[in-house]
């Protein structure tokens, strides 16, 4: 694709996404798009450690939960703005990613994946069974409701959904930019090399552990910010919503279906699949819960079987082939 064409597409995307809330007045429909952007953002965050660096982390939900809990607790009990709270939450998440990474990056392949799930379960069970955490009342499985303190940007509370849409759009754009920047920078090449052959990369003098830790911390920070946003948006946190194992798999699944290690893959898959959940709920009602996850599971199996590299690498390759034959 020529450079000009790329900018045209970019322009169309920008105009469409900015004017969308003006075209869509139904708040329910806008929620579709908020969900899409949130999951595209989360999958992009996962992709940095899981795609670029090839470390199959299956517990990224833990950072989502940390972000959600930290900003919410500080907002509810200390009256601290969620904007500050989410940065603190991101810091905590990055710190935990650092600790975890130092311990678990030595493990190979499946063992690493297992250890990330184990840590997720430990933290989930810990939150689930504690009524107080660090002196703040978190009420275990019940979770915390975020009180309404009036519409204000500082409180990240709005009566409509339009503002939330713009916030997550900004998150998404910044996240995508970070992902692009990492991919095209020296770090991206190092990560790709680690993904291909860790021993060879290490023997060339690349600090493999340092690179993985850096990628993991960035990924954790991004995911935590998403968690903070989600908590403000739905106005509550509880362990099953923000610390679930299913959520972790879902984040990973978009990236795996779209194409691990590509910039656009996770975004495309999230845009295609995330609305399915809302759509099915709209069609069948809440009586058929779990139906969207049935489709997600099926989609993952089919993609891994037929096009293991993911949708986006496959499609872009086919497009190139078509162009080649047209000439």
């Amino acid at each position, binding site marked *: 694709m020529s450079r000009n064409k790329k900018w045209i597409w970019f322009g169309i995307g920008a105009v469409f996404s900015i004017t969308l809330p003006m075209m869509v007045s139904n708040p329910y429909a806008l929620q579709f798009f908020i969900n899409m952007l949130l999951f595209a953002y989360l999958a992009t965050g996962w992709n940095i450690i899981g795609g670029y660096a*090839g470390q*199959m982390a*299956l517990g990224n939900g833990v950072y989502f939960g940390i972000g959600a809990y930290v900003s919410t607790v500080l907002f509810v009990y200390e009256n601290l703005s969620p904007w500050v709270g989410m940065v603190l939450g991101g810091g905590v998440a990055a710190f935990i990613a650092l600790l975890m990474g130092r*311990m*678990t990056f*030595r*493990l*190979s*392949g*499946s*063992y690493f*994946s*297992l*250890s990330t*799930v*184990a*840590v997720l*379960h*430990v933290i989930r*069970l*810990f939150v*689930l*069974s504690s009524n107080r955490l660090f002196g703040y009342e978190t009420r275990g499985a019940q979770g915390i409701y975020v009180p309404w303190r009036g519409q204000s940007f500082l409180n990240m509370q709005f009566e409509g959904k339009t503002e939330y849409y713009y916030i997550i759009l900004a998150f998404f754009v910044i996240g995508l930019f970070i992902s692009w920047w990492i991919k095209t920078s020296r770090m991206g090449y190092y990560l790709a090399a680690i993904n291909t052959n860790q021993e060879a990369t290490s023997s060339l003098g690349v600090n493999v552990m340092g690179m993985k830790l850096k990628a993991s911390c960035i990924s954790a920070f991004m995911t935590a910010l998403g968690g903070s946003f989600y908590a403000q948006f739905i106005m509550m946190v509880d362990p099953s919503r923000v610390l679930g*194992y*299913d959520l972790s*798999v879902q984040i*990973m*699944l978009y990236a*795996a279906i779209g194409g691990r290690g590509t910039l656009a893959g996770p975004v495309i898959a999230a845009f295609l699949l995330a609305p399915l959940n809302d759509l099915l709920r709209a069609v069948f009602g809440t009586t*058929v*819960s*779990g*139906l969207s*996850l*049935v489709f*997600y*599971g*099926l*989609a*993952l*199996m089919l993609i*891994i*079987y037929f096009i*293991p590299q993911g949708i986006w690498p496959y499609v872009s390759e086919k497009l190139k082939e078509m162009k080649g034959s047209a000439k």
Partner: protein
Amino acid sequence: MSIYLQSLIDGLLIGGVYATIAVGLSLAFGVMRIINWAQGELLMISMFISYWIFTKFGIDPYLIIFLTSAVMFGIGYLLQNTVLSNILARETAREPVSVLLFTAGLGMFLSNGVLALVGSNPVSVITRYSGKMIQAGDIYISLPKLISFVIALICTLALYFFLQKSEMGRAIRATAQNRRIATLMGINQKKIYNIAFGISIALVGLSGSLLLPYYTVSYSIGATFSFKSFVIVVLGGKGSVVGALAGGLIVGIIEKFGGLIFSDTYAQMGVFIIFVLVLLFKPNGLMGEKEM
């Protein structure tokens, strides 16, 4: 004192069934280097099949084990023969990530499929021997738990001797040690993989029927069991039947003792923390062999 002995026995009894589930996982992990992320969900399916047969036809769960293990063997064999083998053939890495992703998708599909079909209500069965206890002094032993434990133990030991003594068992172990050399020795690798994975899933099928008489089943129990099995495999060292047996018993005991002294949630956390510690300090398991 007797309360501790009681916990010890309860832990051993449930641990025996955990071990049978984990032995299957361990076998697949050892032979094919794949982690079956859907192990627990397949267990859940087996429990639902057993439940359905019991309520429809009134057949005793301990007789259903023949059916469930045969059916699940077939499912495992076919899954490996038609799907997983193709995915594995493309993989060059030693521990294929795509199989992990595929089975994660399968697990999600199965658990939520059951949720959509039968709902989230947990179900359990009442048999003639439900709630029957054997009293020995101050100790009470649940009869169904004891029967399940004994059957699980017999099957695990049978598998051990099958792997040690039989021609097929030796071929499976040879493939686990070095698949290239095993192929050179005239072992049909594809067939071995099919059978190993079939056995792995058959053990899950068996365990499902064994758990049903005293365990409540719902769509969501799979993930818990998957993870417990991973813990046990890591404790015991991958591919080791005896290790998995020991690991299963250890996890069962930790759960019951942790539940007695602290709470069930803390006991669960304890299992996961021990898992991470073992991974970090003894990655080949407590009794695993060194990697070649």
